[in-house]
């Protein structure tokens, strides 16, 4: 295919009127001035529609008695490609494993959602949430209590009625 060059039509200077062009420009701007078709989204008041595939801030599911569902199996720190999960597991008197330390660095996280996919007990989830601004950097390392306190909805990629996608 031959390369084609588009030749722009430039009107001759003798036939173009600066004043008329300026006036027509002013008419155009006036139309917008009196009837602005503002497309700006008024963010805090109007929320964006998040995609169904949205994966945001993590949350930890809890049992009815307030314990985390996590059994400290160690799969999520293993699978995490960004290496942002720190897990120290422990075992109580009945032999139940539980996380002593469970931290997610939300700055390192790439929100791939693999921790949620790999979790055998549906404990850790990514959420439909993105407004997690803080005043200091260290506030972005979410510990276990903070993850359990999160109350935003979990991602739509996970269906609670069919937790294992069967």
């Amino acid at each position, binding site marked *: 295919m031959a390369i084609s060059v588009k030749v722009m039509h430039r009107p001759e200077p003798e036939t*173009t*009127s600066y004043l008329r062009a300026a006036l027509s420009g002013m008419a155009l701007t006036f139309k917008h001035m009196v009837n602005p078709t503002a497309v700006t989204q008024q963010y805090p008041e109007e929320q964006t529609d998040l995609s169904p595939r949205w994966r945001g801030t993590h949350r930890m599911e809890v049992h009815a008695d307030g314990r985390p569902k996590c059994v400290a199996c160690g799969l999520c720190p293993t699978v995490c490609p960004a290496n942002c999960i720190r897990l120290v597991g422990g075992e109580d008197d009945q032999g139940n494993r539980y996380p002593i330390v469970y931290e997610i660095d939300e700055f390192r996280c790439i929100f791939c959602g693999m921790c949620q996919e790999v979790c055998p007990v549906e404990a850790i989830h990514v959420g439909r949430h993105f407004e997690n601004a803080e005043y200091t950097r260290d506030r972005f390392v979410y510990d276990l209590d903070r993850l359990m306190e999160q109350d935003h909805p979990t991602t739509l990629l996970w269906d609670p009625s069919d937790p294992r996608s069967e």
Partner: protein
Amino acid sequence: MESLQPISGIWAIVAGAVKVTGIFTVLMLTIAYTTLAERKISAWIQDRHGPNRAGPLGLLQPIADGIKNFLKEETLPATAARFFFVLAPMMVLFPSLVTFAVIPIAAPLPTPVGVVDMIIADVPIGILYVMAFSSLAVYGVVLGGWASNNKYAFLGGLRASAQMVSYEVALGLSLITVLMLAGNVTLPEIIWQQQQLGMWFAFPLSLGFLLFVISAFAETNRLPFDMPEAESELVTGYHTEYSAMKFSAYMIGEFGHMVTASALMATLFLGGWDLPGTWDNAFWYQGQLISGFAADGSVIMANPAVWKTLATLAGFVAKTSFFLVLYIWIRWTLPRFRYDQVMALGWKVMLPTSLAYLMLIALTILVLDEVGVAWGFGYGLALTAVSTVCTIAFVFFVDRGRTITGAAAQRAQRVEIKTIPQPAPAGD
């Protein structure tokens, strides 16, 4: 009617203090809200919302800006000339505020102790005072650019001086046509003569009006003439090194000049506070407040009223606002001229045109007076006809590639590569 005397004694001092305080406050508020209007109108033109966070509809934005500018860090460049660096913003701010003193804002207000002129200082030199002080602003700009010790600031200052000096000539010459027609330099008398003529000077002096508006745009450094701060070329020109309140002083000065120039254009060419009809005419003539002359030359006394003052004040505000919106509207429509285009327009077009127009208007006034046309509507119509012809000729002369063209269309200025004739090869 002993109450129709000008206010005097202690009451004159009280009235003066009230007027100074009131007009200064309103002027500062107008400047503040012109900045908001600029941001809002620019936003609407560009299909945005504009500032809408501070207060309802963003109406507290100027106050937020003011607080921000007070709290920001005052920077002082290490190599700046400290004294002049600090002095320069004041030299811009001061003239823009004091020039409003001679502009009448409404018809005289009757009070129980006498009639109050709605003007701070009805000085006999009138418009010359405005010209003198508005010319001083260029020193602040040049001094700021020089004292910053920054090449871009200095270039901005140089451009500002060149541009403001160039266009001041055309401004003054187009102003002289008004002074010739009004026969005086005080602004109340210029308004009075427009009332007597039966039409505002924008019609009998239409080309003068056009030249004055263009020059006023250049004088206030607004687009399309904002060479001094052309941010795509000069960072921000003369106030590159300024921050916080000193920068704010430059901005207040610029917007103050805009407001003053708008009020001045409204007064000189759109009748000031005059509204259509003769009901609001008022002028101090030999110590009496008159509204006109009867056919036999006797005076007709004016009948000032509070509602007339308020109505004319509203008229003045509307006319000034029209020019302010025009300033903003044009700014967000037209691109900036190139520097040589600005200079060419100033010296090669505006100056000769305003000179020729001045001569023509002087000649027309002389002819009309010699023929014996009475000062009135017919006089105005004759001048309107002459001026309309001039305006059409001017527009024809300026437009269509003769003076102003797009950058791509300037054939005359293009450098052609000439082929050098080669000597015939030897040996053939």
